[in-house]
């Protein structure tokens, strides 16, 4: 009897809890605009997931403390409901369903990574929920004709495009010989497609085209081929493990290559983990703190970096910066739409044309940001072994001159 009572009271407590939580989570409650996001707090993307969340939270606090969002003469504050997607696409799609159909969220922020964004986009599209995402760069996200998906970042195929063009330019406009190694995931393969396009347009030749496995921790075979074939440019994209493995093994095997271009160097903390061995590596980045874009909330990149470091205790990687920018885009769109109608907000998002500390934002019909070029930075170290990332391309934003070709190992 007693146990029955306990179970009964437990169930009724649960029911009360559920009923209150359902009613309290709706799109706009009182003076709150509630956004939803499935984010990787555990699992293999958890470090970048946390960067994303920190970026979102920082922007929410900043916007709220600086007057919030003004819609219809009333001031609203942002609030975000997070769920942990465990770095799992299936889970992310379920959580998107739950956020929308159970919690009543009507506006979404993106998850971390192209793969998870791909899993969520069909759900938000189905319900007509506008989603501003900051961490899904795969080209295929923008070719499906999604109407409610907006990405503040440049698509993946542009990541290393500028590296190839720079190499061709330094080669006197003649094509270069490219060696490339890409992981077999959606993002890296898109980066690869971008390189293929750039090679075609510049008359460059691809002499090594290797694919890397998910469990990548040894790419000696590719590097031996590079030693043998002596390409002008070596391009590697395999998330953080690709960047770390490449630099370690290039240094150990003393592979001389005039240009080394990679992705995910700052997420890999390349210069911190490898010190001087990482010197001269070129890295594609969505953002760098020295860029001189400005906005009213974070002022500029340097101020953002300083504020972020103060709050979270580490230098913001670009994943955090672009996530913060996503909130600025939402605020701007709500105010221009002057309404919480999803369709009106969607149209306002599509008409976005603004500058943030992170860069200019203007969406193409596919949803990708076409107004912000990628930047390339080069790892540069002083004699004491202290390394810094300095923007070297495009020239407009360069804070240091590109060192090319990379000095041979025998001379370092």
């Amino acid at each position, binding site marked *: 009897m007693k146990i029955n009572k306990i179970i009964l009271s437990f169930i009724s407590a649960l029911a009360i809890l559920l009923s209150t939580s359902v009613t309290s989570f709706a799109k706009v409650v009182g003076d709150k605009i509630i956004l939803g996001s499935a984010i990787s707090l*555990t*699992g*293999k*993307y*958890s*470090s970048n997931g946390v960067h994303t969340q920190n970026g979102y939270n920082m922007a929410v606090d900043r916007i709220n403390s600086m007057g919030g969002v003004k819609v219809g003469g009333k001031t609203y504050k942002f609030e975000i409901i997070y769920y942990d997607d465990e*770095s799992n696409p299936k889970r992310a799609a379920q959580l998107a369903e739950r956020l929308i159909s159970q919690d009543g969220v009507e506006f979404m922020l993106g998850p971390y990574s192209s793969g998870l964004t791909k899993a969520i986009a069909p759900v938000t599209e189905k319900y007509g929920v506008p989603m501003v995402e900051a961490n899904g760069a795969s080209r295929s996200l923008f070719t499906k004709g999604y109407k409610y998906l907006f990405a503040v970042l440049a698509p993946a195929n542009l990541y290393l495009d500028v590296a190839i063009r720079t190499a061709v330019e330094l080669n006197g406009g003649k094509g270069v010989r490219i060696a490339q*190694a890409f992981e*077999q995931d959606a993002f890296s393969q898109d980066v690869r497609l971008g390189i293929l396009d750039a090679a075609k347009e510049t008359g460059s030749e691809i002499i090594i085209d*290797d*694919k*890397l*496995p998910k*469990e*990548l*921790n*040894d*790419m*000696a*075979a*590719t590097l*031996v*081929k590079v*030693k*043998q074939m002596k390409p002008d440019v070596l391009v590697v994209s395999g*998330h*953080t*493990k690709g960047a*770390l*493995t490449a630099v*370690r*093994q290039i240094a*150990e*095997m*003393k592979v001389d290559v005039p240009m080394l271009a990679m992705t995910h160097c700052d997420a*890999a*903390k390349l210069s911190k*983990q*490898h*010190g001087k*061995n990482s010197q001269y590596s070129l890295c594609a980045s969505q953002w760098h703190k020295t860029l001189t874009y400005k906005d009213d909330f974070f002022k500029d990149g340097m101020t953002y970096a300083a504020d972020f470091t103060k709050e979270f205790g580490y230098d913001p990687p670009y994943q955090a910066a672009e996530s913060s920018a996503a909130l600025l885009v939402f605020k701007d769109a709500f105010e221009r739409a002057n309404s919480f109608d999803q369709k009106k907000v969607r149209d306002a998002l599509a008409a976005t044309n603004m500058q943030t500390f992170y860069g200019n934002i203007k969406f193409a019909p596919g949803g990708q940001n076409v107004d912000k070029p990628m930047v390339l930075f080069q790892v540069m170290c002083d004699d004491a072994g202290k390394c810094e990332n300095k923007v070297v391309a495009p020239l407009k934003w360069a804070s240091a001159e590109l060192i090319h070709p990379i000095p041979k190992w025998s001379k370092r």
Partner: protein
Amino acid sequence: MDFMVFQYPMISVQACLDGVLLGILFALIAYGMALQWGVMNIINIAQGDLVILGGYIAYFMYLYGIHPAWGVIVAPIIMYFVGVGLYKLVINKVVDRDLFISILATFGISILFMQLMNFAFGADVVLANSGYGTTFLFDSAVVLPNSKIFSAFISILFAICLVIYMKKSKLGRAIRATAQNARAAKILGVDTEKVYAATFGINAALCGVAGALISITFTIHPYMGLPYTIRSFMIVIVAGLGNLPGVALSGMGLGVFEEFADYILGTEFRIGAVFLLLVLILVYRRFKLSRKREYLK
């Protein structure tokens, strides 16, 4: 398909040497697996995760300014106790059950370890730099990172020590006796419970050494354990349980096979080739292992 490896003979030499050095390291992990498989009849799916945990020990030493090579001494000591603890908590409950139960249990441990490591150390890929430099052979046509040579050397050293320990020490003899016939050993006064715990501890310690070496030569990440489990499993089924030279040889063979698969099929099929080989060998051996129990000699 790419046959460059055969066009340039030096690349073949490079592949062979890389493979042998790598294979010796695999053999060390496999030896641990063979040991506890032979003694306790348990296939440890969490083998690779123990390796990665050992790697993190070396990595944290490196973070605090200690040279990661010391990890090969510290990691096995810590991992020994982790292994004994794991035995007392979980393994002792499945040790007399059939193989399937032990696979399930260790599979669970593997998932738990992955998540705990991810939780405790983060999902970043990390590595420890040894600063050991490079050896050039054949007019610098072949390059061998000294870290790989160091790994192979340490692995051999540990394997030799273990063999001697198993032959000479009291516990070593008790372990071998238990492997041959646990019941008889028990009747003759061997505390098999203690032997099992020690065996699992020794296995974990070997994994710790291997992990420290991997953090110096490659990279570590909480979810990178499984390929090491698969490799050691494969080496053990090729070599058999009681055959240490066999384990070393098949380890090196697997290393060389992987390197050549890497050159010919491409890096993306490297692990795939290992899995394929595993299937082929299992079919070839027609699951002999399940019918005939082999002993650790």
